[in-house]
């Protein structure tokens, strides 16, 4: 049985990590340069912090704005998906599985049968 994965979306996955949650708190109320964000995490390498920022940006949770040679990050509240987008994605995933299941039931040996059956054969 497939594991229903539609309940978890990208934004929630992005905040599953404690460092990324800490970054979000930093950029919640103001734009913060990448360097200043990294300075808050002395135990984490710069590339690792950049990677976390990339995950947050990919999930649409932070916005990035270049400012000279700096990059400024800020929480992007409109990145949160609305209910319609959630439902749209859910139906599209689920209906694809319904299609597979119904076709498997109706044509359990579809490929083999299609090869063997004469095209004019009818079922009674």
């Amino acid at each position, binding site marked *: 049985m497939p594991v229903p994965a539609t*309940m*978890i979306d990208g934004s929630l996955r992005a*905040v599953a990590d404690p460092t990324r949650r800490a970054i979000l708190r930093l950029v919640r109320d103001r734009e913060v340069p990448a360097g200043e964000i990294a300075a808050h995490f002395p135990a984490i390498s710069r590339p690792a912090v950049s990677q976390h920022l990339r995950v947050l940006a990919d999930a649409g949770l932070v916005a990035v704005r270049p400012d000279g040679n700096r990059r400024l990050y800020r929480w992007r509240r409109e990145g949160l998906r*609305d*209910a319609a987008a959630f*439902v749209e994605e859910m139906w599209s995933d689920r*209906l694809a*599985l*319904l299609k597979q299941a119904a076709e498997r039931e109706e044509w359990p040996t579809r490929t083999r049968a299609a090869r063997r059956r004469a095209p004019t054969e009818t079922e009674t």
Partner: protein
Amino acid sequence: MSDVEPSVVEQTVRIHARPETVWRYWTDPARMCDWWGAAADLDPQPGGTCVVEMGGGGVMRGQYVELVPHERIVFTFGWDPHADAPDIAPGSTVVEVTLTADGDDTILALRHTGLPPAAAAEHRAGWSHFLALLAAVTREDTTA
């Protein structure tokens, strides 16, 4: 005619199976669990229960409204409150599924109406539980 109007989701899928087969995937609990939930409690008659439990703990709670065998199913749709599901109260939205035979295939058309508009959803769905999640995390992080 603005942002406050409820959203509609519409999808159509062609299935290489007869409508009566597809129908069973909306009315038979075992088959419902082949594609949607981890468990289902279905009583396919008008007013009957249509509850689908997701593996992660979310529960879709609805009621069948209309059933025309092999042709049309209408049910209400909502989630029990859950961190990972949007805030859509049971009874607040409606799903209409229409099955139309086309040769050996079925055209399944789904229309989900009454969804909270994007503007409201920012407060009601993602935003509110996102903030709740962050608040919880903040508390957790500062209790040291």
